[in-house]
């Protein structure tokens, strides 16, 4: 596509290149349980895609598929990068290693040279507000701080695609908000593509450029909705709260349709 072909409206927000695509991806487990009906979903590069839906709708299966931890039993997954990080609901740290060692862990396993690893780790530590805690052990930190270590570890392996499975669900609301801001900050600085699972509609609306709503039995895609006022690369940009409120109601309505 040449520049001449780009319509005027899209020029304001260029059509994003997909970083990963689910094409009729489907999952039936060995015991015959149908976890996911065929799903088409695009993860646009440098955008945050949020998955919402009731328990058992196959969100995690979809995320694990994107991570290459489980293969689709039908259809396929096309991924344009191998640089991925996975963030779990629990911080999932090595209890016997310091914060510094935990942050460097994945990069070290990936054989990133020591100097580069150190440099990236110290940047991630600064960015997540962990400076001064490098020598602490995980159990000496609060839940929110541990989650920060988990985030710092994820970015230290320099991913293009960040896969997050309800990463802030176990935190209190205040900390959760702060962690959301951290994530947006990291997204701005590094232009990450994020796939983010949550049960919280406010969180979904705040973080998502697009929201994929899923339903159960079997897990299927109800729809993908683009945000009317997505997070902006400019941290000072105002967001259209009224439009976001409408957006949240719309998502709730779609989920409500599942329950009925």
């Amino acid at each position, binding site marked *: 596509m040449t520049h001449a072909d780009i319509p005027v409206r899209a020029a304001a927000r260029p059509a994003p290149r997909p970083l990963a695509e689910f094409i009729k991806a489907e999952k039936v487990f060995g015991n015959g349980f149908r976890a996911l009906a065929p799903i088409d979903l695009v993860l646009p590069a440098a955008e945050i895609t949020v998955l919402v839906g009731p328990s058992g709708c196959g969100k995690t299966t979809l995320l694990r598929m994107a*991570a*290459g*931890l489980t293969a689709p039993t039908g259809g396929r997954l096309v991924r344009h990068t191998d640089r*991925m990080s*996975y963030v*779990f609901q*629990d911080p*999932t740290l*090595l*209890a*016997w290693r310091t914060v510094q060692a935990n942050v460097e*862990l*994945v990069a070290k*396993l*990936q054989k990133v040279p020591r100097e580069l690893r150190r440099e990236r780790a110290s940047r991630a530590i600064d960015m997540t507000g962990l400076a001064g805690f490098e020598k602490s*052990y*995980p*159990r*000496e930190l609060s839940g929110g701080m541990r989650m920060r270590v988990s985030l710092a570890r994820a970015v230290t*392996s320099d991913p293009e695609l960040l896969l997050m499975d309800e990463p802030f669900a176990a935190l209190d609301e205040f900390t959760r908000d702060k962690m959301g801001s951290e994530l947006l900050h990291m997204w701005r600085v590094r232009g990450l593509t994020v796939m983010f699972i949550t049960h919280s509609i406010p969180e979904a609306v705040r973080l998502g450029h697009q929201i994929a709503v899923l339903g159960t039995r079997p897990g299927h895609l109800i729809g993908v909705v683009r945000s009317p006022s997505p997070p902006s690369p400019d941290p000072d940009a105002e967001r259209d709260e009224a439009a976001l409120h409408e957006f949240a109601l719309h998502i709730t309505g779609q989920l409500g349709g599942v329950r009925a």
Partner: protein
Amino acid sequence: MTAAGTAESAVTEVRAARRPRGKKLAGVVLPPAAALVTGVVLWELITVIWSVPGYLMPSPLTMARTVKDDLPAMWTPTLVTLRESYLGFVIAGAAGVLCALVMARWRLFERGLFPYLVIVQTLPIVAIAPLFVVWLGAGPLTNTLVGAMIALFPVAASTLSGLKSTDRNLVQLYTMAGAPPRVQLLSLRLPAALPAILTGLRVAAGASVIGAIVGEFVAGVGGGQGGLGYVITESAVQLQTPQLFLAVLLASVVSLVLFTMVVIAERRLLRRWHESALPADE
């Protein structure tokens, strides 16, 4: 909530907890010390009131005399037993962890070996010890190996279960980062299994002493080189009950020494990361 008076009387005030170190220590030391003194006094009273003959049950005073007279002679057998059980413990610890690592790494080995480990564990140690004497002759080597044999299973079983119960997400993290199974085993699963390994070693500490003493019962080497097991059989045969009591007491000291070693190792290794090593208050 009813009358104001009730509400007032229900007020609980929680003051900042101040625990002077000396008071805390007293709380730990005093109760068992009091129990000991009471027990010894009761024991003395019983032997005096019913005039229990010394060969059945020596009184505390007799015991005190025995300790004074016989303790020097007990040094050598105690050290012999300590050395045997310590070596048996170390061998069992190393072999047990190694067995578990191999079994955790290759399922084939687990399927193939574990049943036999269980069988070794079910062999009555008293019955198997004479066989070791036949094979290896009477002596410290035999006693050490008998100790090692019964201490092996607790270490191997506990370590294996520790190695297999690593957090699934951590395993997933290592897999995604492309860490080969060997790295996962040594840098993730082994350290994660440390609390389980130490639990196994605690059990092994006691077991290796039992093994060594049973070995000594059977081996029957005199001249102090037979260890506490030999002293125990000899004193029993000669109805030297006070000496028998002393030997039993020293055997439990040997067990305690090994056990304490494990506890100290546990404190140092797990101090900063594991819940079990924390003071109850934190």
